[in-house]
């Protein structure tokens, strides 16, 4: 096993966990990673460093996305430690911009222009606004999000946190960590929170 790739692991317990998976799967995985490193090349903004796992990915990869509870909780806390909430204390921006960001599927691929603002590709996985019928189903429906949950500051914070780093509340979530990775800016996340949480957003009509 390649310990260097999992250097971000934060506790000895996790190292022990990884060592507890010494099976053949480990060899095939090591072989798979070595093969990809040989066969791939950097293109556009997609560098070869993207083939390295960070600590969270390493745990999710090795536990088939079902980490033992204690470890998941510990690592979720580690993720939460890097959450940056807006300094001005305002979690909601403009839902109209939020809708555009939710629609845009660009960002972080080798064919995207480096430096250009990324979209959230939210509709790829979620139903959100009532007008958009072309939505994916990898994630749950977010239609009526604020209306059902309540328009409280805690729920604004939950939405902000989920978009910033989905892994804080669900370690091996399929959803990307848009703030944690710098894919979306603070203002973009605020606009998306407004899309979900503003009482005047079509999501809540």
């Amino acid at each position, binding site marked *: 096993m390649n310990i260097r790739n999992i250097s971000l692991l934060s506790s000895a317990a996790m190292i022990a966990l990884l060592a507890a998976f010494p099976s*053949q*799967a480990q060899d*095939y*995985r090591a*072989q*798979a*990673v070595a*093969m*990809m490193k*040989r*066969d*791939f*090349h*950097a*293109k556009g903004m*997609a*560098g*070869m460093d*993207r*083939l*390295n*796992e960070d600590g*969270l*990915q390493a745990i*999710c*990869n090795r536990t*088939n996305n079902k980490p033992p509870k204690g470890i998941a909780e510990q690592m979720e806390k580690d993720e939460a430690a890097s959450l940056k909430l807006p300094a001005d204390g305002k979690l909601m921006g403009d839902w109209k911009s939020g809708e555009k960001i939710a629609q845009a*599927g660009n960002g*972080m*691929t*080798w*064919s995207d222009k480096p430096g250009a603002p990324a979209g959230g590709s939210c*509709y*790829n*996985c979620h139903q959100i606004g009532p007008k*958009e*019928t*072309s*939505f*994916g*189903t*990898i994630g749950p429906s977010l239609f009526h999000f604020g209306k059902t949950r309540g328009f409280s500051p805690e729920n604004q914070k939950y939405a902000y946190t989920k978009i910033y780093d989905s*892994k804080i509340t669900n370690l091996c979530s*399929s959803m*990307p*960590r848009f703030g944690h*990775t710098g*894919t979306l800016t603070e203002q973009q996340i605020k606009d998306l929170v407004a899309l979900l949480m503003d009482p005047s957003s079509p999501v809540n009509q």
Partner: protein
Amino acid sequence: MKYTITLGALAALSLAGIAPSAAAQGKPAAEKHHMKPMHAMPAMKAAPDPTTADFEKFREVLEDDNPAELFEQKGKELWTMKRGPKNASLEQCDLGLGPGVVKGAYVKMPRYFADVDQVMDAERRIVYCMETLQGFKAADLAKKPFSSDSSTPDPVSLTTYVAGQSRGMKLAIPQKNPKEREAFEVGREIFHYRAGPYDFSCATCHGEDGKRIRTQVLPNLSSKSGAMAATQGWPGYRMTGGLMHTIQWRMNDCFRQQRFPEPGYVSQTITDLLTYMAVNANGQVYKGPGIKR
């Protein structure tokens, strides 16, 4: 991900003329069969299920006059023609059933080839034959490996021809050789490997039944019926853009969406992924080169 196919668009496409008359008119098929109007269609939105239903209906109509057959024909010509620095045809190419045997070879690949001591998928093997028999350089073929508005690469037509020679046969991907089993296992690991800025693996998008991205249905490629989607209809004439593509293109574009760096053309990584998916689909009937949305 951007395009949705609607009844209106489909009607316009049929007006644009998809009947396989291009060959008869003496024009190269690849140039004739661009369905450009697709891009210019007004962005109409349809509910997902009707959209898919429309496409399926249209596919049924097209299947009688499958545009992929034109590329099969072109591939057949390329197969038998003396070409390349060595001025040789591909008729001695060994696709696993002995030199020159094309019939039934496609549904038995990826497979182990003793001469290279490696597992190879169909396109990888064809490129290997172009290299060894005809003297083409693999690096040159890798420069522009996918169909574009201006050209359809020869390996695409050749793979389509070879695939057509297995029409109606059952997938029987061998798993006897240890390297074939290893390719399956390594392919499974690649399939589930999450990394990159979005934490995506193939399984994020293709690991469960009945999921969609926008209106595009995502087959569960780990399941027996779902895995067939990695073979059925490929090589495929893609209605979005009107280009002929092999599974090599599909893998490349999925890795792009996965936010990974770019995999090498006909690399072992792709062979192993294809082995994993094709073995999962073993026993099902391959209907030949097809049509994709």
